[in-house]
């Protein structure tokens, strides 16, 4: 589904991504971990087409298409979804109106007619239930005055509504209380299928107990320096990142 080869990118003349390689297939969940500032959110930004990042080398193929050539909205319409680490507030724009616009824009891209109001309402109810999202929040202005946790849950609600192929969750777990973490994870698990894939960026192994990944990658200084299975997350929890930061030394001493 997604194939990233030697992806390099900079922002304001600072090289952030220094050659990322990653292959994600349908049905898989990949976790990306790594210390603060290592480039995790940057990778998400480059994949979704944020303007201030300049790709300097490499390629990204998504479902046979060159993702880097598409506009941000077309990437979204192709089925790439980012649950933001810091969701933005948009005053005055109702959550529901926003979602309907988004959904219908995506449908239009695939030559489908706008969803009928009744059907949209039904879908909204269904997904609200699935991710246990407070109906009151649905009618409020988009993220305006939402608590940190509510914003994160809204991201997952949107994900459920838009039904993307590839979902990137950027630290969706941080800021969630224990119950919310369980609810959100359950939601994601219910949305998992053999047709979609997830990239889960997190600092905590705890999340990966709920959303069990097929692979765990460690991003450090703009590169994926280690990949493994879910056991790698446990190891990181125990030892921290130091042993990975200097892979050469570790190896020779080891």
């Amino acid at each position: 589904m997604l194939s990233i080869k030697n992806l390099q990118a900079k922002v304001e003349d600072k090289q952030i991504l220094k050659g990322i390689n990653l292959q994600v297939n349908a049905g898989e969940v990949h976790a990306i971990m790594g210390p603060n500032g290592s480039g995790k959110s940057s990778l998400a930004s480059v994949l979704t087409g944020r303007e201030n990042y300049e790709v300097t080398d490499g390629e990204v193929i998504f479902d046979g298409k060159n993702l880097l050539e598409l506009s941000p909205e077309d990437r979204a319409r192709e089925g790439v979804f980012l649950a933001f680490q810091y969701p933005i507030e948009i005053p005055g724009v109702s959550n529901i109106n926003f979602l309907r616009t988004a959904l219908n824009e995506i449908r239009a891209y695939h030559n489908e007619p706008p969803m009928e109001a009744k059907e949209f309402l039904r879908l909204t109810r269904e997904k609200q239930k699935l991710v246990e999202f407070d109906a009151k929040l649905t009618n409020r202005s988009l993220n305006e005055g939402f608590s940190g946790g509510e914003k994160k849950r809204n991201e997952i609600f949107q994900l459920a509504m838009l039904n993307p192929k590839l979902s990137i969750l950027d630290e969706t777990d941080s800021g969630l209380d224990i119950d919310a973490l369980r609810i959100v994870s359950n939601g994601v698990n219910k949305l998992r299928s053999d047709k979609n894939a997830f990239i889960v960026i997190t600092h905590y192994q705890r999340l990966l107990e709920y959303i069990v990944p097929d692979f765990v990658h460690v991003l450090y200084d703009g590169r994926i320096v280690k990949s493994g299975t879910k056991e790698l997350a446990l190891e990181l929890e125990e030892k921290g990142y130091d042993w990975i930061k200097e892979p050469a030394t570790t190896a020779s001493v080891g």
Partner: protein
Amino acid sequence: MAKNSADILEEYSDKEYEYGFVTDIEMDIAPKGLNEDIIRFISAKKGEPQWLLEWRLKGYEAFLKQPDPHWQNFEFPQIDFQDISYYAAPRTKAKYKDMNEVDPELIATFEKLGIPLSEQKILAGVAVDAVFDSVSVATTFQETLKEHGIIFSSVSKAVQEHPELIQKYLGSVVPYSDNKFAALNSAVFSDGSFVYIPKGVRCPMELSTYFRINSGNTGQFERTLIIADEGSYVSYLEGCTAPKRDENQMHAAVVELVALENAEIKYSTVQNWYPGDKDGKGGIYNFVTKRGVCRGANAKISWTQVETGSAITWKYPSVILRGDHSSGEFYSVAVTKNKQIADTGTKMFHIGKGTKSRIISKGISAGEGQNSYRGLVNVGSKAENARNFTQCDSLLIGDRCGAHTFPYIESKNRTATIEHEATTSKIGEDQIFYLNQRGIDTEKAVALIVNGYAKEVLNQLPMEFAVEAQKLLSITLEGSVG
């Protein structure tokens, strides 16, 4: 325009043209220039009574004495008042033979606004079949209004048919000497709307100029007078969301509203005149004096405006709150882009006890547009417990535009409560990207954000009008980001 108007067009399309507002004056145009003789000529053409001619002449005298306004936040354009023709008989002939002759850009905008073809023709000034003539639609409205004793006609006609009302109220809210442009308007006003709602009558429909002016050509010096007698109610719509191309560069209109005891007037405007090209060339200067007076207790006047057009917009719809417990409202969205300038706001004069006013102003600036809010809240010594709330927001799109606020507060009564809130925000790249990431392109994203921002004002408009105003905002701001 409103969907129901389209239905009505359809419904009455087979009715014969019977009578309407077009009185049969021979096509005529006065030579350019402004002097007493021209004013006498205009008055004579209209068959006006002596008192009205004298009133016009007093307006002219006041105009000559008044200096150009100097306090606004823009350089005042040089206007050659002698280079304007002050009288042209109403245009009864169509400008174009068919739609093919109309500027395709204009048609494209009509399409985007979803205006039916029959109405597009009327708005663009294309010859329409007699069956589509808006005059016949107006006629059917007239019959309903008559049943309620409501008068809705041109001012010229009202001068002939209801001289006592005109003499009593004309200039009673905006005197001929009020300001330079009001004085000019008093001297040479061409025509406009007259509305009278009798005691206790709730006007059963939105009154709209759209149905009164048959060619969509509003004229340069319009004069509107609306009187709501005791306990009555009226909602009046001025303008149209469709773009107005107009050869007249300067417009100086006057609107006067009179609400008697327990009466309510809701006045909504959508102004979409030609703003000029990207460099601001050719746009319209819109200098309007709008004022309402709540004469009796518990009267209410509410102004709602959506201003998107004109090169310069210069207007301050105001309310004089004379009756005890009367209230005034002002809801405004003003958009400026390219080189457009808007200097707009309101004045609320609290004279009676317990008077209330509410001001919600939303400025939107894009490109190199300059947007100023200028508002006055004046509380007189007798206005015990007067209250005002002002919310004044500015939204910036891009970094070459400007927003300015000039709130003035004058209070002579210590029991008054005056609240003022102001915010300035910018459409952030982060917001746009967030919406992009959900599949919404940048144009739509801006439209979504802007309509959200202006919602509080748009909600004041009658439902159908609000939907169109929303579309209009989106179209106006097309291409202003990125």
